[in-house]
């Protein structure tokens, strides 16, 4: 035991006891806890880390303003490695350790589905998460969950509306990965495109993790689409697609959905990424339009924050707003009351995180905007107004 004397050990023990003591003190009964199964390792860690930062920052702002009804809000979270069994383990651990857990952040569609019966059974918390799966947008079967943005089908609807306006009767090819994530919006997109008078000329499904896309690009060449819509990917194999299409002289415009839209992932791709478009429900960190919340974020964090950050930030904002409205109405924080309060959110000002006032009529916030990547500036620039799917 070189260097460590009994005294240092004692001091360590005492200080940890003290730390636990203060921790216990801080965990005053009045705290409201947001639980989180968040992927801090594994394939989705890049998003998890950003999401956690977003939630923490919003809570900091909220707590500085006095929290909810004088109660502080705290995030209790653990790493899941983006694996369902670990996500459920974390859920059980955190619910066993924290009494006042009424809000929860989940990390995947599979977790949302797996934990759903338990959420209904407990009737104690509402949950949102990193999944934008269309399946969750079903208040009947997922009564206590919501998505802080449009679901994947709605994202495609927003893209299609934009296309219909820009180029009526456009020819479209959809490229989806052969996974649950990738296949999510295919059917609804078919129907929506027909309604808008757009023609889907080819539906390409790529195997998960595919790198060689030359056969798919040949299909694209035969189809000669005006727009090519990707879904079910983060980055790969989009750059490869775009490079090969450019070499073949295809004039098509490439579009993507939320998880492909972070500008930092495109920064290393270079010139070929220029002109990539997609739907984004939130503002970017560097957006220059009037937005007090973005100013605040830039003040707290001088460096660029990814889109996952905004997602976490807005999710925390909507969750805590639901809790605030429930307590203001003098109701208990049950899942039923929280969800009802969430649905009362109408024309809500997010401080510029979303550019228009939002409502949560069901399980989603069906709003988004089309952004386009500018390779010279390494930024996403807005090319449309905010598009709301609400009637």
């Amino acid at each position, binding site marked *: 035991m070189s260097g460590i004397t009994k005294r240092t050990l004692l001091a360590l023990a005492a200080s*940890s006891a003290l*730390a*636990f003591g203060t*921790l216990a003190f801080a965990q005053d009964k009045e705290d409201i806890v947001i639980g989180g199964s968040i992927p*801090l*390792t594994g394939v989705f*860690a890049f998003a998890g*880390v950003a999401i*956690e930062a977003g939630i923490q920052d919003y809570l900091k702002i909220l707590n500085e303003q006095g929290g909810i009804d004088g109660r502080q809000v705290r995030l209790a*979270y*653990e*790493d899941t*490695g983006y694996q*369902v*069994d*670990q996500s*459920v*383990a974390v859920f*059980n*651990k955190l*619910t*066993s*350790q924290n009494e006042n857990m009424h809000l929860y952040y989940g990390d995947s569609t*599979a977790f949302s*589905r*797996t934990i759903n*019966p*338990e959420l209904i*059974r407990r009737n104690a918390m509402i949950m949102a998460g990193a999944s934008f799966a269309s*399946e969750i947008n079903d208040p009947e079967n997922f009564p206590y969950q919501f998505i802080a943005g449009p679901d994947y089908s709605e994202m495609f609807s927003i893209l299609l509306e934009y296309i219909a306006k820009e180029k009526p009767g456009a020819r479209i090819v959809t490229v989806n990965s*052969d*996974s*649950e994530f*990738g*296949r999510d919006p295919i059917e609804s997109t078919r129907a929506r495109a027909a309604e808008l008078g757009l023609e889907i000329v080819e539906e390409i499904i790529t195997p998960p993790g595919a790198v060689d896309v030359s056969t798919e690009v040949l299909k694209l060449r035969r189809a000669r689409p005006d727009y090519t819509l990707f879904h079910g990917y983060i980055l790969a194999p989009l750059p490869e697609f775009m490079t090969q299409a450019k070499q073949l002289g295809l004039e098509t415009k490439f579009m993507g959905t939320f998880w492909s839209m972070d500008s930092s992932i495109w920064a290393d791709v270079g010139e070929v990424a220029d002109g990539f478009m997609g739907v984004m429900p939130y503002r970017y960190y560097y957006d220059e339009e009037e937005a007090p919340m973005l100013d605040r974020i830039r003040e707290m964090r001088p460096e660029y924050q990814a889109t996952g950050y905004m997602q976490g930030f807005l999710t925390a904002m909507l969750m805590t707003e639901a809790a605030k409205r429930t307590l203001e109405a003098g109701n208990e924080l049950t899942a039923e009351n929280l969800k009802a309060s969430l649905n009362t959110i109408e024309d809500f000002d997010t401080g510029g995180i979303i550019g228009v006032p939002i409502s949560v009529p069901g399980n989603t916030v069906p709003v988004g905007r089309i952004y386009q990547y500018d390779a010279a500036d390494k930024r996403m620039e807005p090319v449309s107004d905010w598009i709301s799917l609400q009637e």
Partner: protein
Amino acid sequence: MRIATANETYLADEALLSTRTQWAWMGILALVLIAAPFVLNNYWLYLACLVAINVASATGLNILTGYTGLVSLGQGAFMAVGAYTVAWLEANVGTPFFVNLVAGGALAALVGVFVGIPSLRVKGLYLAIATIGASIILQFFFVNWSSVTGGSRGINVAPATFFGTQLTTYFQLYWLFVPIAALMVLGAANLFRTRVGRAFIAIRDRDISAEVLGIPLLRYKLLSFAISSFYAGVAGGMWAYFFRSVSPESFTIVESIFYLAAVIVGGMGSILGGVIGAAFMTLVPEILRFGVEIASSYVSNAATLLSPIRTVAFGGLIIAFLVLEPQGLAEIVQRIRRFFHLWPFKK
């Protein structure tokens, strides 16, 4: 070798538990298992259920890989067959959970026999790759046979019901999974007291000699695949009732590697090894969480900073045990036993 344990009958010689001490330990284990759900909180109960499922599957793989010497990376796919069978029966037929679990096991066993056919020609790594091939084919069916499997989205599973009571809490599921897992482990232990089990071991040690001894390789290799897959199928069925949703992404090749790792870390060809290996692989990453938790009183933002270290530590522990205890974790238990056999007379 323990002294003063001469047996007078073959029956006594073959007994699973031969000494009073062993009986006493088994009794204590049984008592602990019975008392556990009343003491543990929801989190530990969840983990106990998960360990039970993994023990069942790892024991199955141990029969195939540890005792028969046939390396398989198809355990995850066999579990998926069981899970899908249970999900489908629960949704479309509504038979009792017990029937569903057995049916899941039976169908997995049937699939296992087909997957096992190449084992007559190839061994070792070649067989492992052949089982990966079979997993890919099965995965293709799970994704594309949408009318039965629900395609890439999968199927939701209604909770198991027992005399009209829905088994939804971990407390209830514990009483379902732990006895089933215990029964399966007991079955596996007993298997190796029979002709069939000994035939498996003979094949593992030298298949040509086994054939010379009059063991039909075809029948016994396929039988080993069938039994092992049956275990996987039942474990997969329990998994389906546990997570209540089955999709093609639930059982990937990673799952198969997990079970093979559990068997190797625990101790191949040892029933205790399969059990300890499964428990180790399931519980250690969770126990390491507490390390992160303790550190969080010293480091701010510990979860974000230390979670990657947790993953590395888990990997490091696996390597450390493989290097320091190549016979598996079960060997540690054996060593402790040997120590006490001579205690206090050992120098």
